[in-house]
């Protein structure tokens, strides 16, 4: 018979790397896409639908031997603005970071305007961020606003 302890097994600890915590469970796969995690060869463990007081259901990603520069990790702020990063060295959290919405978003989001050239021709999308609290993106091409509610990841 298994002990309770075994039944409660959580995602295992990592020696060196990055833990991305407080990801809303429903955007886990968007975060994976945005960070191109499907293309890296380091060990990755995910947990999703974990209980969270703040988010209801949250997801967590643990990446061994992987560290992000701000510019890279800030891209996920579009879908997971509350995400928190723990940088791990030798099984110890050496730094905690929050994500911040960048000034410009390139090639991640889709313009919500169906008449925008970017939705009709092969073009990398580009937005200026006009509001960060409730994210509003202004398309560099059609100049229309895509708001938080309508942000879709390319």
């Amino acid at each position, binding site marked *: 018979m298994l002990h309770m302890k075994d039944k409660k097994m959580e995602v295992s600890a990592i020696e060196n790397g990055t833990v991305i915590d407080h990801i809303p469970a429903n955007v886990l796969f968007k975060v994976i896409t945005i960070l191109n995690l499907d293309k890296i060869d380091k060990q990755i463990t995910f947990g999703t639908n974990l209980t969270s007081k703040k988010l209801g259901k949250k997801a967590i990603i643990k990446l061994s031997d992987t560290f992000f520069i701000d510019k890279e990790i800030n891209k996920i702020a579009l879908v997971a603005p509350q995400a928190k990063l723990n940088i791990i060295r030798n099984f110890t959290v050496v730094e905690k970071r929050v994500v911040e919405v960048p000034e410009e978003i390139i090639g991640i989001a889709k313009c919500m*305007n169906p*008449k*925008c*050239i*970017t939705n*009709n*021709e*092969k*073009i990398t999308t580009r937005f200026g961020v006009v509001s960060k609290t409730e994210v509003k993106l202004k*398309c*560099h*091409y*059609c*100049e*229309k*606003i895509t708001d938080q509610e309508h942000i879709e990841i390319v």
Partner: protein
Amino acid sequence: MKNKSLVSITDYSKEEYLRILSLADEFENHPNPVLLKDKVVATLFFEPSTRTRLSFESAVLKLGGQIIGFSDSSSSSVTKGETLYDTIKIVSNYCDLIVMRHPLEGAARFASEITSVPVVNAGDGANQHPTQTLLDLYSILKTQGTLNNLTVMMVGDLKYGRTVHSLLMAMSQFQTTFHFISPDELKMPEEYKYYLNRLGLKYSEQKDFGGSVNSADIIYMTRVQKERFSDPIEYERTKNAYILKNRMLEGTKDTMRVLHPLPRVNEIDQDVDANPKAYYFTQALNGIYVRQAIIASILGLK
């Protein structure tokens, strides 16, 4: 301004507007200087707009330039499935300047980024039509003698009308007071009012002409289109409130002028046409001088 594409009215500074306007004045006085000898301008109209195309082509021909292009995408390789990217890349080999009209928003910006040939946007969907705005500015300057401290009344479809949005952006640099006259369904969008608030400019919003018509220096009329209304009964009820009639101009300033980007349907009664305050047909003529000025300055010939 040499080689600088004109895609959006905000691409140019106030000083650049003024330079274009003074050049336009030069062309009005001397309309046919041969500046574009050996120059080829491509007019690529992916959707038809006869008025705008003829105005551009007339401007080029008056300057002694040559024109290549198409007036409708059905007569180009677009119908064979060619991408905009490829069309622009190819045409760039053949010309010194591209004038383009496209039904999709952002098409001109994209084109300007993939070619070293300067691009003039002649309308991209509901987004921008900057040469229209510059000819509106020129018409205002000519009729009022200044662009500063004027009162501009905008009437009709202020929600979807790209000409009023661009004109608002441009005129907001000249201490303008605005009156917005529109049905509730077609009010000026919040983002533009927010912009005016930030600049500390005055504006009012009304549902009918009312008394402010007498304080206006410019009445800028636009079409109220039936298809913009979700409720057809609401359209029938409101449409007549936005028709300008000659008797409504009685108490207006002597120097006041009525502008309209054209084509009009019925929003300016024909009885206004004979009134010296009606300026919309001359406004269209001004388009030639302004487009000559834009082309000449982008090609670095003036």
